[in-house]
């Protein structure tokens, strides 16, 4: 397409979207006879919903599952997730399976409104009609919950919904998954899930200024809810390279002895994957471990370096505040801390996750088992947190020091105020 045509297409799309005729679809009336679903279909949908981790975004803290209202912080402001329960007024009770399919495949609501790509339809468009129907059977058999979400708080121009038509025209490629004939069935199953419903790239692929995934840097490491999502590609900085087996263990149990544990926004993903068919988690691990560009090479050699004064100060903090658990962990009851040297947090290109974990700690959901670490945000001043994180990097990683530790912590504090 040449430049002039492209411009015309943008304008045409924009105009038609603004005029509300971009999505000519009559809203469905409330269904008359109650729809019934096969039990097996609902069960299959439940596993698919867990693979897609729908629940995490569509459930507000302490509120009913799938009833929406969770605040999702984006670089463009805050978006509140929608109510997926079949309540006719505030949920999707009036949606037909075709409406539901169109939302997943095309990013349009029942009434034809543009949906924000915080709902990752750029991935869900890969999902088969069959799986969409099973997901529909699952959500439509949840308990209807009356819950209206708060209005989004987005900055201009992101708050002008029809403009999303332009965003889609530029970045969104609709279309179902196409199997790779040279690869195994397991690899293809994994590719279908990873690129589609599981939407791994939504966090692990970096995004451009318009918030779209950079197609030429798949899985090179991105951001999620204020955390760094480590690279799942050859850009991985894991000291022990990831293998299919390690990925499987990590995804299935939230822990791998050579890579540490799932924390931050990854924790609920692993919890969810603990409930799905084993073969699906194996397939995901196979694809991530064997796709072109998967992490294989060992990490680069260490650079010689000299400790800074901050690191020395951080060493004293570490000895007093951290070493009780992280140095002599044999004496600890329950789950032992992982060796810090293998963790992604100290080997990432950014100190973001190390700062978050030192500040906030690790807390399993109420009533759940799991690794637990107290946060040190009150115990330590921000300057002391910066020093100890610099020490962690110097002492436990072969990577060059981070130069932006205090700047990153300042940014995190600002993000958390919002």
């Amino acid at each position, binding site marked *: 397409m040449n430049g002039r045509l492209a411009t015309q297409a943008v304008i045409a799309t924009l105009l038609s979207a603004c005029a509300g005729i971009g999505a000519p679809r009559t809203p469905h009336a409330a269904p008359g006879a109650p729809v019934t679903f096969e039990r097996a279909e609902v069960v299959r949908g439940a596993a698919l919903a867990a693979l897609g981790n729908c629940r995490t975004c569509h459930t507000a803290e302490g509120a009913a599952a799938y009833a929406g209202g969770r605040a999702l912080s984006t670089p463009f402001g805050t978006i509140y997730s929608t109510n997926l329960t079949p309540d006719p007024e505030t949920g999707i009770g009036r949606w037909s399976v075709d409406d539901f399919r169109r939302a997943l495949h095309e990013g349009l609501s029942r009434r034809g409104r543009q949906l924000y790509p915080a709902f990752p339809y750029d991935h869900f468009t890969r999902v088969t009609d069959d799986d969409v129907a099973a997901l529909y059977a699952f959500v439509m058999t949840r308990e209807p919950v009356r819950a209206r979400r708060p209005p989004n708080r987005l900055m201009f121009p992101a708050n002008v919904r029809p403009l999303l038509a332009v965003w889609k025209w530029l970045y969104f490629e609709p279309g179902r998954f196409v199997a790779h004939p040279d690869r195994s069935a397991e690899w293809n199953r994994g590719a279908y899930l990873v690129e589609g419903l599981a939407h791994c790239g939504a966090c692990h692929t970096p995004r451009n200024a318009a918030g779209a995934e950079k197609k030429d840097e798949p899985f090179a490491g991105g951001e999620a809810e204020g955390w760094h999502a480590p690279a799942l590609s050859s850009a991985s900085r894991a000291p022990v390279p990831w293998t299919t087996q390690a990925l499987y263990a990590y995804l299935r149990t939230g822990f791998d002895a050579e890579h540490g544990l799932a924390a931050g926004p990854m924790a609920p993903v692993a919890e969810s994957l603990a409930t799905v068919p084993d073969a699906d988690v194996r397939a995901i691990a196979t694809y991530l471990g064997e796709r072109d560009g998967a992490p294989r090479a060992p990490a680069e050699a260490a650079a010689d370096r000299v400790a800074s004064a901050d690191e020395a100060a951080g060493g004293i*903090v570490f000895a007093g505040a951290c*070493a*009780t658990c992280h140095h002599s962990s044999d004496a600890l009851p329950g789950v032992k801390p992982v060796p810090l040297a293998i963790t992604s947090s100290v080997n990432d290109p950014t100190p973001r996750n190390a700062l978050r974990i030192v500040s906030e700690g690790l807390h399993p959901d*109420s009533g759940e088992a799991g690794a637990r670490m107290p946060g040190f945000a*009150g*115990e*330590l*001043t921000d300057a002391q947190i910066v020093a100890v994180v610099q020490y962690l990097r110097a002492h436990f990683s072969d990577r060059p020091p981070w130069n932006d530790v205090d700047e990153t912590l300042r940014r995190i504090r600002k993000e958390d105020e919002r």
Partner: protein
Amino acid sequence: MMDLRVNGTVYAVDADPDTPLLYVLRDHLGLDGAKFGCGLGQCGACTVIVDGKAIFSCITPISVLGGRTIRTIEGLGSADNPGPLQRAFIDEQAAQCGYCIAGMIMRAQALLDANPSPSDAEIRRHMMPNLCRCGTHMRILRAVHRAAKPAANAAADARKPGSGA
């Protein structure tokens, strides 16, 4: 030698820099309200307030406390003259064995200092790190509500989970 400011008094303390604050409070300064529970920052029995925030004194080395302000349960009142929050705990009989209570009170005090009229949900979320093995939680919650500003209690009750939120 290191200077520590505790309850308004500056103490010169002779201890290794990685000594936990809890040990210094109890063994050097004779302030034994804060208790040793787990030593890992997981139970809250050792909670004191530093620069306005509730912290675990068992995992806080004194090396990080230079120039900072420490408050312990002894700073809130005495057995003869209890402070308002201590009074509320007594009135609600919010203790059984009592081992966790100094920590509970200090964590609650940090909340009330920052937010004099917390909702029930805010109190529950804030108190989550502190454990009580006797099961006195409901009385502890009542005591914190009692010490909160009276007008706030009504508003807090209206916001209780289950009432439409």
